[in-house]
């Protein structure tokens, strides 16, 4: 799964730690999602979408 997390975070001017705090997850989790090494669960994907005020499909897309 591809995502725009890094780009969206940069637009907001947030650090990885800022985003992690807003999502109530570890910074390691944010790093892993941004690096494409971890696909978040559906509840976490909804939380990410809520934080950025977007729909899940505007942040995450299928690789195909």
């Amino acid at each position, binding site marked *: 799964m591809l995502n725009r997390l890094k780009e969206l975070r940069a637009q907001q001017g947030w650090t990885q730690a800022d985003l992690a705090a807003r999502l109530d997850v570890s910074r390691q989790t944010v790093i892993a*999602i941004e690096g494409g090494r971890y696909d978040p669960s559906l509840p976490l994907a909804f939380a990410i979408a809520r934080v950025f005020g977007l729909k899940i499909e505007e942040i995450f897309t299928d690789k195909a």
Partner: protein
Amino acid sequence: MDTESRNGWRYAAELAGVMVVYVAVLYARRPLLAAGIGEPWRAIVLLAPALPIWGVFWVIIRHYRRLDEYLKQELLQIVAVCAGIAACVTSSYPFLKDAFDLPSMSIEYAWNVMAVCWLAATIFVQLRTRRLPAC
């Protein structure tokens, strides 16, 4: 201090606490056993160090429950790899023992084997998830 650091410190403090209890029990039972206490107290004192070992398990479960979903997945990978390595090591040892005339090992070495396997599994998983720089 953020949640991640707080959880890390809490885990380290709880683990250190249990290990201090373990060492204290090991030393405290010596004079009791030397004094020649009778049954059933002797059996209870002999068994006492097992309780802090169960405490280590309890501390790890508490730590696991505090982790977020990614770190939970990573810890489960470490436990799985650790179990695999430990199973291979303990299953291979009888053959190594025969081949190289090594001494028989007591089950008391299980703790040491698990600790080394846990360390190896942590390094292996973190190299794979690129949390540690590859050599």
